[in-house]
């Protein structure tokens, strides 16, 4: 639907921007030699480990690699479960 609306209003993403976004991801995987599949299993193991200590929401965990200049970063966004384990 979003796409349809974008097309309707001529706001389709420029192909150069699409190319840039795609390349960003591809180059990070090429450089670090980590496949999207490996990143997924890294994520799952990370969830297992962290869950031992903190209640988190496994479905909302996001792991991303970013690049700024020559620096690469692995960024994990791990939301803590909203049913808090408060002391009673």
């Amino acid at each position, binding site marked *: 639907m979003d796409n349809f609306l974008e097309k309707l209003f001529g706001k389709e993403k*420029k*192909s*150069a921007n699409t*190319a840039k976004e795609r*390349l960003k991801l591809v*180059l990070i995987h090429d*450089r670090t030699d980590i496949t999207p599949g490996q990143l997924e299993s890294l994520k799952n193991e990370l969830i297992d480990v962290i869950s031992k200590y903190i209640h988190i929401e496994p479905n909302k965990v996001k792991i991303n690699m970013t690049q700024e200049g020559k620096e690469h970063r692995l960024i994990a966004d791990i939301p803590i479960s909203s049913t808090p384990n408060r002391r009673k």
Partner: protein
Amino acid sequence: MNAKVVTISDGDIGLRNLDVILGLENRIVYDIVDVVEGRCRIRQAMIRDKRLPELFLIPAAQTRDKSAVSPSDMIRLCEELRDEMDWIIIDSPAGIERGFRNALAPADLVLVVTNPEVSSVRDADRIIGLVEAEEKGPAQLILNRVNPALTKRGDMLSTEDVLELLAIKLIGVVPEDESVIVASNRGQPVTFANNSKAGQAFHNIAKRLLGEEVPFMNIEANNGIMNKLAKMMKFRGD
């Protein structure tokens, strides 16, 4: 520009082409494999350019493959020429195999040429990584075949995009230019063509290599239909 003694070595053994680009195809007697295998001296394989007495070509062999020359052969040949030449330009074949290794081995400076397209940029990133792994970096970038009209309308990666993706220093931007085809048809390097934007871009790269500060040229599209119309209107208005 000051005259410099330059040798160009065609690294694409088996797919020789610099001879036809330079219009020197009828003068070849010996090639680089003949030098490596001892059938001639290096001087005998160097073909003097028709236009520039300071320019020489060492042709690739056409009937052999890349394995006929090794990286250590290339280092040895370049050492032999180093004292007599100001520049030795080695044109590396595409790919990351032997031909690329041969071209890289004797290099002091690496220029990576890429087009602003996804496949080309991705390959360039690999090459830049390999150059760094061999401690030949940092490589510098020539962005080739830039189409200003496409860039303007957001359908081609811009120079800034590519530089950001590859995190590399820029040494030249060459616009897509029909005169490159015309020049190669004639066997005349495009740098000799008058009013060729690509030719001008190559002159600028040469100057930058010699340490001159040359601003990057403005390759904004000026042949779009709207531009032409605007010009006509102006003309009439005057």
